[in-house]
């Protein structure tokens, strides 16, 4: 009886809360597959899975079925650590900017290389009522740091990767302007932690699939759940973006997976024709029963393509270009189990293009003047558009890379002269020695139309201790990608407000793009390495030199010097018996 009454008290508020939230729209799940043929005979394949949800907590679990569209293993740690927004991304392989004609993958939120965690977390340090005294404030800041560490490590555990900071203070907090929040957040602080050494492999795909409501078993995710196929593709990126529900707004979590397939096989055919079954060794799957929409899209290239069975054609802005997009509704039962084939009209053999159309904006980074101890980063920002662009270029380095700010210079390539006027602002957040923290630099750049800017950042690499080197120290160490943030993009949704019918297909306006950031690739830097077999030898030898010096000094300082009368015949040899009392001596200090 006691038990039952207790359970009653437990359930009552839950029911009340459930009934109170009936005006909130129900949870919904959308999935899509986007195929984007690239000019160099490759195809970019993007899976997107989006879930809209109202409550991250399981309090109402009992009144529901066992199935929910939201993964508690992901949302619980976020809820517990007061994380409002979160993005995790893994990227492996290099995006070929020049040949693909795109500044980056279609998954606009994908990071540069390796793993990356970023998000917005509640800032207890800024809360006035809590931060009364200085020590209390420090405690709260530490608490912030602890929660950041906790959440990154928890995600690392979830995604089978070492995403957490290996040292204290490694999480950067100065990227809030680069990654603005989606909603209105107050008292939240941004955190950003790139892990350039991480790779993307099956162990990262497994948890990704298990977070999806369809679990990789049905719907589009069943095409994805084939690591043997998708990991043989070139460039790959995987990630999730979570926006927690707040102030009555629905939350959303989105997972993406994008890969780049080479359509020309090594042997056999020489044309680009492909089909779903050739790509995935499967035909179009049965839709996931809970999916509210399931769409396949093809971004039509400039060349003519024939597609069977064809879908509905729409016009959309895709990454700053007005393009035609063909769409199939996979919830339509007639298409289930079908195979869609894509062929380029009249293409017997694919002719590799001599020239490529360049993306409107791109950025690349190299390290020059390299000796093992110093170097210079050369950042090349290209603007091929008709308009001047306002950008922020950001760098984040581990503490052992130190910039020389007074030697930073900015050149326009064609004029080959310094253009300090284009660098409107520079934010520098140095790493605080001795350990752990990172150096961040934000350059506010104005890139004129049709121009190439060269930014040179000289730097020094500190010599690391024997124990701080990685096991494969001779290979070098990765530093995270640089990020070029475009401040003037308005997003692809802007197309709905403007009348696109009068604009010809293929028109480029770089502002109508969802790509707010362009990443450079990560960079491997040589570091000065000691000889790892030497510790004992060095300790012994250095100490020996020191002991020799000490011994000689001690000997010289403590011995007495005196005049000794030596018989003429003995003069050449100075071997004396000093205690021979027959020899007259005069010893310093014995004048009396």
């Amino acid at each position, binding site marked *: 009886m006691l*038990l*039952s009454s*207790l*359970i*009653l008290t*437990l*359930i*009552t508020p839950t*029911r009340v809360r459930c009934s109170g939230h009936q005006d909130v729209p129900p949870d919904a799940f959308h999935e899509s597959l986007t195929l984007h043929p690239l000019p160099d005979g490759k195809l970019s394949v993007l899976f997107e899975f989006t879930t809209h949800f109202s409550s991250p907590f*399981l*309090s109402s*679990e*009992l*009144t529901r079925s*066992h*199935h*929910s569209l939201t*993964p*508690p*293993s992901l949302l*619980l*740690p976020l809820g*517990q*650590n*007061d994380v409002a927004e979160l993005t995790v991304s893994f990227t*492996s392989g290099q995006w070929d900017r020049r040949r693909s004609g795109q500044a980056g993958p279609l998954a606009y939120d994908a990071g540069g290389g390796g793993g990356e965690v970023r998000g917005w977390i509640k800032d207890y340090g800024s809360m006035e009522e809590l931060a009364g005294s200085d020590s209390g404030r420090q405690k709260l800041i530490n608490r912030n740091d*602890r*929660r950041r*560490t*906790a*959440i990154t*490590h*928890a995600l690392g*555990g*979830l995604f*089978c*990767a*070492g995403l*957490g900071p290996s040292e204290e203070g490694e999480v950067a907090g100065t990227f809030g302007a680069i990654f603005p929040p989606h909603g209105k957040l107050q008292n939240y602080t941004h955190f950003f932690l790139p892990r350039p050494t*991480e*790779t*993307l*492999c*099956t*162990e990262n795909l*497994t*948890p990704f699939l*298990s977070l999806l409501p369809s*679990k990789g078993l049905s719907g589009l995710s069943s095409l994805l759940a*084939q*690591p*043997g196929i998708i*990991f*043989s593709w070139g460039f790959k990126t995987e990630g999730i973006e979570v926006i927690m529900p707040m102030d009555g707004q629905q939350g959303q979590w989105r997972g993406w997976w994008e890969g780049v397939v080479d359509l020309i096989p090594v042997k056999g055919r020489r044309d680009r024709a492909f089909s779903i079954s050739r790509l995935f060794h499967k035909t179009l799957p049965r839709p996931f029963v809970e999916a509210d929409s399931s769409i396949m899209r093809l971004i039509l290239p400039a060349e003519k393509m024939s597609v069977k069975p064809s879908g509905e054609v729409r016009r959309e802005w895709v990454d700053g270009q007005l393009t035609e997009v063909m769409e199939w509704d996979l919830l339509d039962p007639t298409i289930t189990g079908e195979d869609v084939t894509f062929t380029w009209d009249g293409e017997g053999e694919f002719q590799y293009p001599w020239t490529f159309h360049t993306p409107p904006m791109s950025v690349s980074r190299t390290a020059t003047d390299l000796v093992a101890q110093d170097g210079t980063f050369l950042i090349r920002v290209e603007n091929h558009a008709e308009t001047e662009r306002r950008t922020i270029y950001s760098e984040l380095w581990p503490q052992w890379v130190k910039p020389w700010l007074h030697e930073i210079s900015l050149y326009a390539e064609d004029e080959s002269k310094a253009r300090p006027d284009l660098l409107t602002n520079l934010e520098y957040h140095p790493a605080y020695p001795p350990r752990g923290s990172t150096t961040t630099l934000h350059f506010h750049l104005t890139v004129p139309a049709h121009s190439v800017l060269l930014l040179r950042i000289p730097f020094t690499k500190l010599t690391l201790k024997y124990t701080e080197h*990685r*096991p*494969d120290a001779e290979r070098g160490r990765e530093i995270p990608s640089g990020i070029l943030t475009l401040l003037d993009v308005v997003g692809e949704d802007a197309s709905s407000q403007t009348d696109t019918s009068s604009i010809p297909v293929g028109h480029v306006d770089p502002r109508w793009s969802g790509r707010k950031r362009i990443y450079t690739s990560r960079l491997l830097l040589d570091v000065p390495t000691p000889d*790892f077999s030497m510790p004992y030898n060095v300790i012994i030898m250095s100490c020996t030199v020191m002991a020799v010096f000490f011994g000689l000094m001690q000997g010289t300082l*403590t011995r007495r010097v005196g005049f000794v009368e030596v018989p003429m015949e003995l003069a050449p040899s100075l071997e004396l018996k000093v205690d021979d009392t027959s020899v007259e001596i005069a010893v310093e*200090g014995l004048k009396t």
Partner: protein
Amino acid sequence: MLSTWLWFILILNTLNVYCISQQHGQSREGSINADGDRTKDGHTNNWAVLVSSSRYWFNYRHMANTLAMYRTLKRLGMPDSNIILMLADDVACNPRNPFPAAVYGNSGRQVDLYGDAVQVDYRGYEVTVESFLRLLTGRHEPHVPASKRLLSDASSNVFIYMTGHGGDEFLKFQDNEEISAYDVADAIEQMWEKRRYNKLLFVIDTCQATTMYSKLYSPHIISTGSSQLGESSYSHHNDYDIGVSVIDSFTHEVLLYLETLGKTSNSTMEDFFNIYDPIKMKSHPGISTSLSSVQPDQIRITDFLGAVARIEIMSSSSILPPSTLLSHSSSCKFNTSSRNSNTSPRNSDTSSDSGTSSRNSGTTSNHRIIPSAGISDDQDKTTIVAGWEKSRKVRQRTKSRFSINPSDRSILSNETYSGIRMREKGDSPLLMMDLIGIGLDKRGMMVDWIGIGVLILTLAALTLGKR
């Protein structure tokens, strides 16, 4: 309102019955054997730590050894959440691998050991001697997620498999550091003292492997290694498409044998050791059972390499106080690691754990019975094994795995899961500096300088005195 309540009771009952019947079935299967004593070993759950300590592509075979063991464990029913897999390099997605996301353990490439649902817990640079020792002893930083912890208890059978390059009493990690046989022995002794295992099987495939377990001194350990002191262990064969050796001889032979076993197999460790053939294995494997109270023919292989499910029912004396009853309405608690993690328990205690631990294993539904919260008194619990067939007293437990302070929800991981509270950060061994009293921190520098001053004065006095 009433209907909801009734539904709740009904669901709980169903789950109870399901849980019990499941255990009943499984353990009855398990108890069919000749002498009936083999189930006496008294473990209720299984854990495994699989370590491949070598870096670089040419050490492909070590990754393959470990992954083959991993696959066997999963085939024998151990859930992913109970296997800690440490791979020092990523060969599956290495650019040199002609078969992306696949690792093969034989030249025919019949079975992809990496599979579709591998979960690597420690990978790359995270695999270090320190992380391995912390894993065994459970002395982690508070933020380490549950998937990277060995959450075993006094009724866990733990299987440790290590492979890499080694020598006399050491095993190399990452081509950078070594773990010595003494380190392993001390770590396992700590495990024993902290009641982190019931029985332990230690298998190692490396050169001079038997030296690695020669220093063990804790009870209830069976250990075996691929080669004797002064003897190398060799790889088995190459795959010419992959371009490197794909598996080591010892592990290859062991796996060939393990492939013949199923979840319900009654083969004993004695049968396992009987397959050792120095000619096929190209080395003389060693077996050590001197630390074990049970002879190898008295213990089944699946007691270590499988997942045994058994139920534990508390006696009425250990009924929880009402406040905890609210969250544990039945004395039979369960923690399912089923594919769908949405069935996580709803109460705050366990859900905060599931926040970190509910990595979906995607394997057989294994019901692992966990000692209930709040039991830290001296009362012995009655353990009813195999559907109330037998009852026996178990060791007094001092563990309270789910004792989270509800107010401290911001801390993600459960730091007090172990009976002994960890020293955070302070786990480094006592330094010699500490002993001789030379302070190492900034405050201590003051002491140093005073000492130095005294020494200078002494030296000066000596120099003067000589005059």
